[in-house]
């Protein structure tokens, strides 16, 4: 697969490490979260057959973590963005 890196352009997915669903960024608030919140965060996944937002770590590149929107039935990629907020130049 080819991931169109927002800064570097098309890069082979082999340069990346797949980290899983993008929901992993929504870590529960330790102050308020319940045991169920933690369970759901750590263990439950939508796992859709279709559009999926997921994290790819560019370990063999600039070490950015990207949020990739990809169709899990066709592998077509519709969007790629940097995971880190205030995406730097």
């Amino acid at each position, binding site marked *: 697969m080819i991931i169109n890196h927002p800064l570097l352009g098309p890069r082979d997915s082999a340069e990346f490490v797949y980290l899983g669903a993008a929901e992993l960024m929504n870590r529960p608030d330790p102050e308020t979260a319940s045991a169920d919140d933690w369970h759901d965060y750590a263990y439950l996944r939508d796992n859709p057959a279709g559009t999926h937002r997921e994290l790819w770590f560019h370990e063999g590149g600039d070490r950015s973590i990207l949020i990739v929107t990809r169709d899990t039935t066709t592998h077509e990629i519709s969007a790629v963005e940097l995971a880190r907020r205030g995406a*730097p130049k």
Partner: protein
Amino acid sequence: MHDLTPITALGGTAPRTDTVGDVTLTEVPDVSLASVAARVGQEDLCATRLAKLLGATAPEPGRASSGDPYAALWTGPNQWMLSADFNTHEDIAADVNAHLTDAASVTEQTDAWVCFDLTGPRINAVLELLCNIDLTRFDTANATRTSIHHLGCFVISTEAGQSVRILGPRASAGSLHHAITTAMASAL
């Protein structure tokens, strides 16, 4: 002055050179390296000071800049690798840090890497056996991180189609050297 004698990444006292046909691979030990990462919130200040230090704005993503004493290479968002002549700038991290101070985090990287120069008219025939770079568009001063036989390397185009600089993990210098020289024998 201390009394410890350095060895090159390939374990020699002198750098190694290999030639196949009209392409030459040279180990280059006299390079000092420092990583520069802008502090969060200090990106602009870092850019300004870096520009002053480099005599030009720091390279954009996928690009490298040459200069005296410092050359630079974009390595990540708000992050660069600076290089200089080891003989004059062995403690490059301290030197650079003195200029950037609290605008950036500076880390010595000199001996994290082994440096090779690959030169000659047919280097692309060698490179296409080693790494996934679109050589139809790899112009001078382009630079990229890529994988060579499972080793994460930086490849910098110092003269399109004529010469590249390869930075690879120092501990694997032998494996990297073997990969490049076998590719030279195969392609040339």
